């Protein structure tokens, strides 16, 4: 699940201090568009008894910092409880958040194995570097793209220049009252053929 602007920027949607790399001045750009519909969708996704998360180092540490141990929202209990797989070449075990597993080395190879062990799927958010690894190794099954009604003109993009081509099949497209478009895709072609 990825939050992007119309120009594909995915850097720091939540808060100004979330990811100020390269002097990015617009951190927190998604917050003004919060809506009850989007909150309900996120709550439903995280209301499932099972599930797992897959995160890159930066998003993992940020989520730990923001969500761990809180009781004032419907997300923290789920995030604290489910297995969390973290891709990083620099983090060391033990990881700070309970139920965390560090993925080192051949992330793509390891993920293929873990996908089989997590039948309820793994939720990935943010994690731009890992997202590109998944695309390159054809490990992304479903993409929920939340497109916000603004152009920023600067910032890190979800689909970086030089990434691999990929085709998707649209499953669903909704809009929120604040103008966010929530489109759900799965890998494949529009006509139902192979990837």
């Amino acid at each position: 699940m990825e939050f992007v602007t119309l120009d594909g920027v995915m850097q720091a949607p939540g808060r100004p201090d979330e990811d100020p790399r390269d002097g990015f001045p617009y951190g927190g750009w998604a917050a003004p568009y919060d809506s009850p519909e989007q909150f309900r969708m996120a709550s439903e996704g995280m209301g499932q008894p099972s599930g797992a998360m897959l995160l890159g180092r930066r998003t993992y540490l940020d989520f730990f910092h923001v969500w761990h141990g809180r009781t004032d929202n419907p997300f923290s209990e789920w995030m604290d409880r489910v297995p969390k797989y973290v891709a990083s070449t620099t983090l060391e075990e033990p990881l700070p958040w309970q139920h965390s597993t560090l993925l080192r080395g051949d992330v793509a190879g390891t993920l293929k194995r873990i996908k089989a062990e997590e039948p309820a799927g793994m939720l990935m958010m943010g994690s731009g570097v890992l997202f590109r690894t998944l695309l390159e190794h054809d490990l992304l099954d479903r993409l929920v793209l939340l497109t916000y009604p603004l152009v920023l003109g600067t910032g890190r993009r979800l689909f970086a220049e030089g990434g691999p081509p990929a085709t998707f099949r649209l499953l669903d497209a909704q809009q929120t009252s604040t103008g966010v478009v929530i489109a759900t895709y799965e890998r494949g072609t529009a006509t139902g053929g192979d990837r």
Partner: protein
Amino acid sequence: MRPVVVSTFVTLDGVMQAPGGGEEDTEGGFPHGGWQMPLFDEEFGRLVDEEYGTIAGFLFGRKTYEIFADYWPNATEDLEIAKILNTLPKYVWSRTLERAEWHNSHLMRGDLVEEVTRLKEQPGEGILAVVGSGRFAQSLMRHNLVDGYTLWVHPLVLGSGKRLFEDVPRMDLALTDVRRTPKGVVVLRYRRPA
């Protein structure tokens, strides 16, 4: 006032280069030309016709103008679109073109802001559409001349190619419409907030 609307076929990674054919625009060694065609279906065609039915005139950059002027006067398909393109006024901005001979074309040499503002203030209904013309559309964005967008978002990622939103300022927009086609194109309409 006649609004300027940028109406563009884009991919999920925002690429707008050469949707229609392999030879349309190979600049930068772009190998994916023609990516729109497999995603065309009846509903897509109907939505394009609907959009073209609202157009009062076209604003072009040089490159797209030349591609269109080469193709549409002798088109044998999409005759409704051809009729609209061939008939309506076309304004092309270029420093290098010497003449614009496609019927009802106007070669624009003056100041972009003044000329576009003057066209917007002309009486009448309908939109002034910018199709293709990526660099030109970005100039309009930088001069705050774009009033709306129709983004035809195709369900694929290309990984290279010219993007619609490049070297442009921050712009906050309002979503006005969402449509989808059977082959998974999501048509998003935005306008500049009042």
